């Protein structure tokens, strides 16, 4: 794994890279690389077995600078176009989890000609009436000042699962990890709060533009993005495979069931 800093007109973007081959852009979520972990996790390394995996950290997160002006999803999408320009990448495959999946879908509806294949894991971004994403901000405020059980349940299948306890422990955690989580919540607050529930109301109607092959993966127990969002993505993306549900996994299915999700992705991306 190598880490580097891209400079976009004085704005720093922190990037982790691993592997060789055709570029696969990885856009992260909360319980994920950059969102909690400073390094790639086993899932990402497995994806990099036969691809060049490129995982930028969102603005303000894990070494990337915050944006100076404009934080709408449109601005974030432009930000990633600039990141791709700086990397010199014209065509790519993209995979995104959670808020990263939202950004991947926005890229796909704007520039379908640049994207070979699209994969989404527990992605937000859609407005699905009666099925809002859960309130991650309220649950990031610990109970009794120290207890993150409800946040863990939102992001994982169980508040007591090993990865849940590893990345969102009760009490005061490791300072770097706490800061990274805070930065990811701050990014979420910038991009996912206007409107406040991590959606772009117009996106669902635009999905028809994204005609590339698409794979939509959802944890059966997703406590953040309801599974109805996965069904809406799979129904709206013209060339999506049937929705893949990971039994027993939560929102961060790629962390909890890393190996099987990675296998699905590898056979999809080739």
């Amino acid at each position, binding site marked *: 794994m190598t880490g580097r800093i891209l400079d976009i007109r004085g704005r720093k973007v922190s990037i982790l890279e691993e592997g060789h081959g055709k570029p696969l852009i990885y856009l992260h979520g909360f319980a994920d690389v950059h969102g909690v972990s400073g390094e790639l996790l086993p899932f990402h390394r497995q994806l990099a077995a036969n691809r060049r995996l490129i995982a930028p950290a969102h603005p303000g997160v894990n070494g990337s600078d915050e944006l100076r002006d404009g934080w709408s999803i449109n601005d974030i999408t432009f930000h990633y176009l600039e990141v791709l320009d700086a990397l010199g990448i014209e065509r790519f495959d993209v995979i995104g989890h959670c808020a990263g999946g939202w950004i991947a879908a926005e890229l796909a509806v704007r520039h379908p000609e640049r994207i070979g294949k699209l994969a989404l894991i527990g992605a937000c971004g859609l407005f699905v009436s009666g099925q809002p994403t859960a309130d991650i901000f309220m649950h990031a*405020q610990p109970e009794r000042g120290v207890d993150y059980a409800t946040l863990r349940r939102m992001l994982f299948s169980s508040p007591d699962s090993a990865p849940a306890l590893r990345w969102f422990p009760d009490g005061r955690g490791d300072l770097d990890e706490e800061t990274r989580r*805070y930065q990811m919540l701050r990014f979420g607050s910038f991009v996912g709060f206007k409107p406040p529930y991590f959606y772009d109301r117009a996106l669902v109607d635009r999905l028809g533009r994204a005609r590339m092959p698409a794979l939509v993966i959802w944890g059966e127990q997703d406590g953040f993005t309801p599974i109805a969002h996965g069904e809406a993505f799979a129904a709206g993306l013209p060339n999506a495979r049937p929705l893949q549900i990971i039994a027993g996994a939560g929102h961060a299915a790629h962390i909890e069931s890393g190996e099987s999700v990675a296998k699905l992705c590898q056979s999809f991306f080739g």
Partner: protein
Amino acid sequence: MPGPVQLYCWHFLSYPHLAPDFDETQYSGWVTVPNSLWDREKSRGLYQQYIDQLAYADEIGFDGMVLNEHHQTIYGLGPSPNLVAAALTQKTKNGKIIILGNLLPLHMNPLRVAEEYAMLDNMSDGRLIAGFAPGSGPETFNYNVASAPSREQFWEAVDLIRRAWTESGPFNYEGKHYPLRYVNPWPQPTQRPHPPIWIPGARSKDTLVQIAKHGYCYFLSSRSHGKETAKSVQQFAKVLSDHGDSYRPNRMGILMSCYVGETDRQAQEESKEGVWYFLKNCLKGHQRREGRQLTYGPGVPYIPSDEFRDFLKFSDPTVPLLGDTQDWDDLQRSQSIIVGSPDTVYQRFMDILEHAQVGHLLIQFHLGNMQDELSRKSMRLFATEVAPRLREASAKLFARNFPHDAAAGRLETAK
């Protein structure tokens, strides 16, 4: 010579009709507290009672009355403090009317605040103190105010309002958040150059810098008043001197709660119901570990991440908050809610003034579900038996410690 400490009566307008089992049965007093608990019949006349208490404070010689803005909470029934302030302009004659403050990021257009405050300044004949606050965690949830950009929005809104009051209109405001082609509010405030501006703050250096730069008054929004307050004063003094200014008591205020009775024992007996109601019910969700406090933390990320990192380094999430207070001795140690005879209360306030040298004490008298007569009696004892001594002793104290206070004329003494 600097003048005496200014003593204001703060009213939170709390909801007083909760059932005794509220704490056992309800998760929070904030944001999600079910409004089916609102009792329409018992609540008749409640606002009138609170407005009358504030008018009484004016009558008995307090330097002013303080209101603030809260939403969807039993803690404070003042989603629009400007309405209560408008009533006070008609019912009072002397004291300052302090709104601390309108929560600017909740307003689609801060010009509306510039207009309403200017109306209040005219309606009160120049008695308004204009507080502005950015809101904190609960507003994130109540009004869908995105935390992360809210500070930047806030300072832009303050800038827009100050310019709307001081520059001739119409002018074009090239704001990032509030661009406005025609800034030209009618009326203009009565006070020149503008009503005093107060800004609450606690942890952010950036807030102090802005306050120092523009000559605003710093209201320390903290509930612990031991060494911490003195530390905050020193921090503010340092920022002021970095900006070519010097600290004076009239640049800073703090919030206290108080109950004065004839004797220590009587004060404790009379106040304890209201005090515990305030601590256990009103602070649940705000200044209490039990449940989920929504005011500050990772879910409401309104400060930059380096400031949050510093906060993590120097804080302990298991340290009790004011609402976690277990018993009466614990409470007295907190130095936040001061209960006792006039002598005791005088002594304890003087201790704080000697340590902290702050020129504005904003004092909450009505606590939780406190009865009207008790609130008024406590205010009266304070005004007659504590305030005169505090004024005299603080004037001497400040004269001794700030002998070269060039701003003597600026600090308005009581009538």
